[in-house]
């Protein structure tokens, strides 16, 4: 009897569970599509929902459309937040397609290499972002004139926009700027590979009035934002310091210490003629029997062999040392 009661109870439970499943399925089958993320997105998310999510991958080249909800473009509380059609266009041909083939593309698609031109894609972004002062020099900038589109660097639907993360930004830039990737991997480099700096600390990729898209109006002004001790003013300036740091330095990286383009004295001698004779008191070689009278100790060869310009000219960026008079001028000495 107890056995039969148990069977009956189980059958009853199975029936209830089956009914509940059917009822749940019916409840879920709501023919009216509702906005999922953005205001008015139902016309798009009715088809493009979580099913658009790609297979998991490390690169996330094409994040699912609903990921927009994790980005600033998905902030519904902000009245400026756009909806799908603000960027992709009304796309009526795409929306109203009834055929069995693939529907026509939306008005604006942001797929590399780009079924929509860079101008068309950028126009969608600049309709809101053109007012941003950081992007005021985009028109006519190198990136603009060479057909770079915003989404070539930015991932709009991804919460992880790699170019906006200091640790990963350089990898995005390196996809085009391969020479800079090589330089950054040389022994002497700015700490970009270590994640302490990013390309945008010096460059404004959205355009600037300076050369090489420098953030400030010149190379030196940009360098001075961190290396302010090189700015001066000094009693005696070293002209390249005022003119362009990259005359002596390769900022992305070199095999010479201090990011120098070449080792002293060769770097120095690319502008300065080799040293003339030294007075005996400043001679670099020991005086003594068998040594005196050898020209090597009196001219620049010893300095060259010792790589020693900076042994005396320690203040190459500028000096306040007043001693410029002969016989022992102390240019750029401490």
């Amino acid at each position, binding site marked *: 009897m*107890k*056995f039969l009661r*148990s*069977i009956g109870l*189980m*059958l009853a439970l*199975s029936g209830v569970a089956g009914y509940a499943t*059917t009822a749940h*399925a019916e409840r*879920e*089958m*709501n*023919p009216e*599509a509702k906005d999922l993320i953005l205001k008015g997105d139902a016309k798009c998310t*009715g*088809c*493009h*929902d979580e*099913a*658009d999510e790609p297979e998991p991958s490390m690169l996330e080249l094409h994040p699912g459309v609903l990921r927009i909800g994790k980005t600033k473009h998905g902030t519904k509380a902000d009245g400026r937040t756009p909806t799908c059609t603000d960027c992709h266009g009304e796309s009526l041909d795409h929306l109203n397609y*009834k*055929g*069995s*083939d*693939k529907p026509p593309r939306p008005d604006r698609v942001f797929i590399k290499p780009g079924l929509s031109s860079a101008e068309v894609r950028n126009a969608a972004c600049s309709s809101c972002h053109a007012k941003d002062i950081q992007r005021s020099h985009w028109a006519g900038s190198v990136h603009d004139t060479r057909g770079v589109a915003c989404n070539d660097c930015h991932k709009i639907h991804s919460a992880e926009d790699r170019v906006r993360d200091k640790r990963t930004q350089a990898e995005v830039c390196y996809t085009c700027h391969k020479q800079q990737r090589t330089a950054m991997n040389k022994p002497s480099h700015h700490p970009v590979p270590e994640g302490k700096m990013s390309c945008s600390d010096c460059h404004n990729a959205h355009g600037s009035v300076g050369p090489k898209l420098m953030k400030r109006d010149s190379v030196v002004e940009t360098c001075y934002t961190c290396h302010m001790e090189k700015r001066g003013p000094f009693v005696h300036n070293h002209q390249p310091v005022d003119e362009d740091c990259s005359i002596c330095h390769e900022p992305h990286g070199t095999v010479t210490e201090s990011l120098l383009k070449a080792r002293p004295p060769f770097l120095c001698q690319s502008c300065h003629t080799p040293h003339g004779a030294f007075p005996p008191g400043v001679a670099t070689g020991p005086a003594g029997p068998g040594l005196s009278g050898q020209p090597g100790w009196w001219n620049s060869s010893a300095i060259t062999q010792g790589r020693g310009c900076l042994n005396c000219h320690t203040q190459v960026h500028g000096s306040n040392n007043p001693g410029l008079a002969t016989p022992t001028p102390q240019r750029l000495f401490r």
Partner: protein
Amino acid sequence: MKINFVSVTTLAAVAAIFMLSSPARAFDEDAAKSLAKRNDCFKCHAVDKTKKGPAYKKIAVKYKGKEAEGEAAIIKNITTAPMVKLEDGTQQEHKVIDTKNPAELKNLAAWILSL
């Protein structure tokens, strides 16, 4: 430890009921989903919610107990592009799938009908 014969029998009976009520999974779910995703089936259908087309669970309920008929109907829809009625009442040609392999088509239909 004393084993209650009635309890064991009850458990065995319940297990038998569940085994009989669930169909044998003679299909590759991952392959079916992959084929459906590749062909944008999920643009119009979802497993458990109504989009432009009916949910797969609704189709499975419709053909419950008539699996052979359901399989034929599904394969006809995805291979011959008939006009189908959408959930909003309008009509549209059904999309044609990019494979003609009967095994793949049957596998997809079997997965849908199993939901």
